């Protein structure tokens, strides 16, 4: 037996790399030297590879998708965010994005590291269904898109502050244009919303096959629904009356706070059927 398990090693290494990336990202906000974004990207990529290895090892050892407790859930959540972050960087090359996204990843990873890490050998029979994988992966991908949207929303609000207040120093030069931030925020919500919708639908179907009822007003179900409504509202208001810019950015941040509460708060504070997640 190794003194430290391989998957734990992978996890700790990924966490460390995300940590360094966060530090560099935050310093990059204040120090106006050369672009730090390349080093953040490299760290995130290496961290991501190790993180993937961690999840793969857990999958092989446990024989099921490793999203069965809060440790695994938070870890998978941040993994999804890193996937989207890398894709977004590849597609748009947004300066300073890492400075706003890596802290979210880090906080999720740190909280993940604080929950018990055991790989449950005997899975709750309810989870032995292919709906389990589809439902959870869809949910976390949607949540990751909302996390990105919130990060972009924060960037928007900061940049908007600069332009409105007419004090154009500090981050003004480095942050992207308001329009691009607003559009990317919108695209991310348009991506997250159908994912969340599908997650809820698959959840409902799965609930019916597992418990014989579609909807039981379990706290997680309720809070997911509230989150869904918020994002539905964001999209609806944008398309009808043009709620864009500051309001959209603000709502996307509120939406993400709800996502986080639905994920952690419901599990830790309110007991329900989803307690095993």
């Amino acid at each position, binding site marked *: 037996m190794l003194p430290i398990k391989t998957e734990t090693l992978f996890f700790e290494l990924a966490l460390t790399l995300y940590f360094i990336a966060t530090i560099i990202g935050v310093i990059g906000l204040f120090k*106006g030297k050369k672009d730090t974004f390349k080093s953040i990207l490299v760290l995130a990529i290496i961290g991501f590879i190790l993180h993937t290895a961690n999840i793969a090892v857990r999958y092989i050892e446990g024989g099921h998708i490793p999203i069965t407790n809060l440790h695994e859930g938070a870890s998978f959540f941040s993994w999804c965010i890193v996937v989207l972050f890398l894709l977004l960087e590849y597609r748009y090359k947004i300066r300073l994005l890492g400075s706003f996204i890596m802290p979210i990843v880090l906080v999720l990873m740190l909280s993940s590291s604080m929950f018990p890490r055991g790989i449950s050998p005997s899975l709750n029979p309810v989870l032995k269904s292919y709906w389990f994988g589809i439902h959870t992966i869809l949910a976390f991908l949607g949540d990751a898109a909302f996390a990105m949207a919130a990060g972009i929303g924060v960037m928007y609000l900061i*940049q908007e502050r600069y*332009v*409105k207040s*007419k*004090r*154009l*120093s500090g981050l*003004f*030069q480095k*942050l*992207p*244009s*308001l*329009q*691009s931030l607003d*559009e990317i925020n919108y695209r991310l919500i348009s991506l997250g919303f159908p994912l969340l919708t599908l997650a809820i639908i698959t959840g409902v179907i799965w609930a019916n096959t597992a418990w014989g009822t579609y909807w039981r007003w379990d706290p997680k179900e309720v809070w997911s629904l509230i989150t869904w409504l918020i994002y539905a509202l964001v999209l609806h208001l944008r398309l009808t*009356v*043009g*709620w*864009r*810019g*500051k*309001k959209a950015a603000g709502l996307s941040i509120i939406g993400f706070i709800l996502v986080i509460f639905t994920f952690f708060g419901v599990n830790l504070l309110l007991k329900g059927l989803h307690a095993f997640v």
Partner: protein
Amino acid sequence: MNIIVIGLNHDTAPIDIREKAAFNGPKLEEAIDILKNSPGIKENIILSTCNRVEIYANVTDIASGSERVKKFIADFHRIPEEVLNKSLYVHSGKNAMTHVFRVASSLDSMVVGEPQILGQLKDAFDIALKMKSSGVMLNKLMKKAISVAKRVRTETKIGESAVSISFAAVELAKKIFEDLSTKAFILIGAGEMAELAAKHLINNGVKDVLVTNRTFERAENLAREFNGKAVEFDNFLQALVHTDIVICSTGAPNYILVKDHVHKIMKQRKNKPMFLIDISVPRNIDPEINDIDNVYLYDIDNLHGVVNTNIEERNKEAEKGEKIVDEEVETFLKWQASLNAVPAIVALRDKAEAIRKEELENTLRKLGNLGEKDVKAIEALTNSIVNKLIHFPTAALKSASEDTEVMVDIVSRIFDLNTGTKNKSEDPGDRGNDEKQ
């Protein structure tokens, strides 16, 4: 080998003197030619822009050379010497190099960091090259100045942010909108600054241009100039629904755009962002509309504020630039010092070679008929002895960076070289001219 800079700029000379002292068009070549044929002036380059007139020269003697150049400027432009001298600055040696590097890097410009000066300096250098008025010293100085300027530009943020009203407007537009080519723009009224800003916007991609004016004819004329469309003044509010960038510059004594208007317009636009620039004094757009979401209003004072912070930023960056210039002056001085040693090294080598040849011939004659192989062996022997012997003084001359003159003097005396301290300064310049021809 003495570099001098004689000139005047926006700080030292009022505009009328700068105008008189300028070397424009054919005058420039004429002046270069006169200087080229002046005794004691071995090389010259003339930089003449609207903010500065400077002559860079390599002279045999600093004092007499400076006097000659000063007198030349006065005579050439028929400016009384006592008037001109009040505006002129004279730098020599290290100060001259620092000055040239600072000018090239735009640290000495009226607007610090403005990029044109480097191009102007390159042009001046090109003309000098073409007219063969510059030689090894000034060529090296110019090349170095250009590379220093590039270093300053890349290593500091000296040229990063806009320092004119019209550029500041474009910079802001780019931070509000991602792609200006998909945005529509309207110019309300006219005026120099507004039209300049409009031109900058068009240069930065804005294609959809509208112009409106109380005098429709005026609007039509401007629209033609900008390749846009003229709009009746009474209809401009309706046009705002489809325009993203507004520049307003009318002589109206009151607000022509108020909160109510913009509320309605924004509703029709579905809150698509709008950037309004009010250049008019008194203002034409109610400042309160800046409070409306997705509406960004800048008046002339706001833009001045932006420009001022940017200038402060540039001045901070300029300090970093000064450090780079100081560093580069040091390396240039080192190069120049090593150049001082070149004639001595050449003379030493020539002398050694002459001695070797003479002795070799003598010996070979005395020895009589030797085989080809033996002759070659003896030759090789003499060569290697000479080379090994002169290696030490040569290396010493090359490495001496601060006390080159002393070293040159010592070596010249020991080996009785005829490149004494007296001629030393002549040689590199002449060699430079040879190289060039």
